[in-house]
């Protein structure tokens, strides 16, 4: 108790020095605590982003994988033409539906592409006549996309297109149901419930080119206006039709067995770390991942958390730097104090005080200052870390946005065509640009442990000098 009393007398007897030590500790503890808070806020934001966007895994044919597997029997009795991909390259809808039921999949989507020739009763929308001599082979077609949910198609999601009559395509849409664009509907005087006739849009010799009837269940409007110039029919957004996977497979001249064949499928994962579980579930469902590999696209997640993760990394480095620098500075200050207090140490030693107790007194003094500083840091660091964190984050967000503008992005979850880019057809994912800083007991405990560790190191390392002191030298020779 004697040393505690002496420590108290010393702290109150030299208030200037006590304040200086508290101030120094306050700066160190505030920076360390701010670092911890930024890190934990970043971790929370990353978790939240993970839950919000998950990650998108894409499953599609890998031609090299198919060839390597030796299963490409397209030219041997499958009815396919030589050089084409056989049925082993068909990604069946029923297989993908099984994978969609995996517990790690939050949502899934898939598309099938196809084309259809106009018929006598169903004409293309061509506001500008075909220029004389223009070859229209392979372009005077409707573009037919088979989709699972029309609302998930990026053009509908981002508002470029919207259903204006009837309903869209859904998982329960029948094979012979179709949604047409307003201009095609007007051109052919179509209304909901009318029937259109379309011819299989496949030019390969030997492929069935029969006509099939589809019932118009919905009419949509695309916001892209006519250019006033000739555009090949298939390139005109007005000639875009949507139907079921089976319908698109049928018009694409492919089999409709197993619910039709897909171009690719996308799975929205609840957690980007769940890719391996998805692959396991896909294998269990019967997928050959050599032919249909699954790869994750966590671009959206990375866009969201990239800047905040960089800020968190910076905060981590700062915590370490400040902790090390703080320890060194405090050790120097304490060493300097010890030097100043040689006389006092000599007096106490001459009275027979034990050296460890002298060290203990110093430790108590420094720890007392540290405790006050930690308490003050607890009050101030929430505001400071929010200000520092947001400032740092703003810089990272700016550079992330610049990077994003310059970067060519892969296709997103909703668009399995592989044609679209995030920048033009997906709602833009903005990085997280603010920190939600909360000071919790664990943060205080961490900074408390760090602060007290620094106090102990800063006292004990220079304090070894105390153990070498000789009272006679101090008292008779002075400092």
């Amino acid at each position, binding site marked *: *108790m*004697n040393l505690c*009393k*002496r420590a108290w*007398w*010393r702290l109150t*007897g*030299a208030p200037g020095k006590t304040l200086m030590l508290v101030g120094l500790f306050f700066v160190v503890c505030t920076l360390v605590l701010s670092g911890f808070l930024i890190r934990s806020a970043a971790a929370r934001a990353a978790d939240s982003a993970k839950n919000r966007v998950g990650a998108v895994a894409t499953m599609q044919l890998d031609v090299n994988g198919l060839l390597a597997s030796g299963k490409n029997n397209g030219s041997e009795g499958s009815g396919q033409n030589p050089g084409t991909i056989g049925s082993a390259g068909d990604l069946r809808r029923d297989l993908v539906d099984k994978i969609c039921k995996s517990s790690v999949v939050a949502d899934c989507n898939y598309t099938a592409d196809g084309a259809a020739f106009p018929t006598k009763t169903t004409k293309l929308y061509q506001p500008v006549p075909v220029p004389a001599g223009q070859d229209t082979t392979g372009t005077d077609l409707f573009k037919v996309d088979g989709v699972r949910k029309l609302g998930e198609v990026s053009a509908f999601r981002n508002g470029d297109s919207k259903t204006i009559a009837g309903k869209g395509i859904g998982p329960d849409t029948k094979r012979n149901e179709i949604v047409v664009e307003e201009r095609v509907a007007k051109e052919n005087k179509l209304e909901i419930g009318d029937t259109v006739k379309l011819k299989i849009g496949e030019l390969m010799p030997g492929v069935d080119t029969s006509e099939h009837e589809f019932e118009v269940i919905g009419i949509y409007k695309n916001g892209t206006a006519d250019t006033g110039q000739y555009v090949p029919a298939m390139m005109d957004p007005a000639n875009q039709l949507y139907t079921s996977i089976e319908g698109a497979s049928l018009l694409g001249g492919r089999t409709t067995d197993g619910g039709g064949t897909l171009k690719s499928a996308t799975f929205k994962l609840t957690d980007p770390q769940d890719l391996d579980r998805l692959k396991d579930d896909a294998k269990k469902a019967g997928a050959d991942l050599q032919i249909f590999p699954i790869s994750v696209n966590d671009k959206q997640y990375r866009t969201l958390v990239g800047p905040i993760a960089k800020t968190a990394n910076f905060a981590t480095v700062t915590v370490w730097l400040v902790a090390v620098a703080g320890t060194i500075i405090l050790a120097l200050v304490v060493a300097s104090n010890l030097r100043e207090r040689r*006389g*006092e140490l*000599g*007096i*106490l*030693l*001459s*009275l*027979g*005080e*034990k050296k460890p107790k002298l060290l203990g007194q110093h430790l108590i003094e420094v720890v007392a200052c540290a405790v006050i500083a930690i308490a003050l840091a607890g009050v101030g660091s929430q505001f400071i870390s929010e200000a520092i964190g947001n400032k740092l984050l703003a810089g990272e967000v700016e550079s992330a946005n610049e990077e994003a503008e310059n970067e060519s992005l892969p296709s997103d979850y909703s668009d399995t065509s592989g044609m679209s880019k995030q920048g033009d057809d997906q709602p833009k994912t903005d990085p997280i640009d603010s920190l939600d800083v909360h000071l919790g007991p664990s943060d205080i405990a961490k900074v408390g442990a760090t602060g007290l560790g620094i106090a102990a190191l800063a006292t004990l390392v220079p304090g070894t000098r105390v153990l070498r002191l*000789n*009272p*006679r030298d101090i*008292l*008779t020779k*002075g400092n």
Partner: protein
Amino acid sequence: MTSTPTGTHAHGGTTAPILELADVSRTYSTGSRRRVVLKSVSYIFEAGHMYAIVGPSGSGKTTLLSLASGLDAPTSGSVRFKGRDVAEVGLGTYRNRHVATVFQSLNLLTYMNAVQNVTSAMEITGVRSGSRKRRANELLGLLGIEPEDRARRTLQLSGGQQQRVAIARALACEVDILFADEPTGALDHEAAAGIIEVFQKLAHDDGKCVIVVTHSRDVAAACDKTLVLKRGKLIPQG
């Protein structure tokens, strides 16, 4: 070597050998230079006596005090407390339990007030007292420190007051031997006489051994024995 058996003091107190310097030498080395400060000093100090150690400046008085009070160890020879080498007892324990020193430079703890300086020393030396604070006040009062001055930090006290606080601190430790290095240097004649009286009482009435290093003839005259330190040798006078 002088030897003194247990006996009776002229003032009636019990005398017994308490501290023995046995062939003590102390040499200091600075680089290749060696300086012999004390050379084979032998002497036995008795309880119940007050000693004065005198000698010219640089004669080694402070060194002798350091060795005898356990602040330093001799280069050769031994310092014995009640027949036991203090090196065996441990210099820290020896200082803590058996001796107290009043330094020439006062050496008070400046962040404490007078009472705290005294009670702090009592706690360190393990003085079991019902009320250390009361005892500290008694001693400070005995040495003429007014109550209002006792609560002031020592730096706010005059040199003479600081000297008396330092003496009170040494007295409070209830040790067997009291060393004092020029204890009256900062005091006026009257105050110095008061201090000497306290030391005499301590030796003659309480049976303690008081060893004073001094330049003052008056102080030396008030002591029971005077020892002269000259050229590294301790020579009893008279």
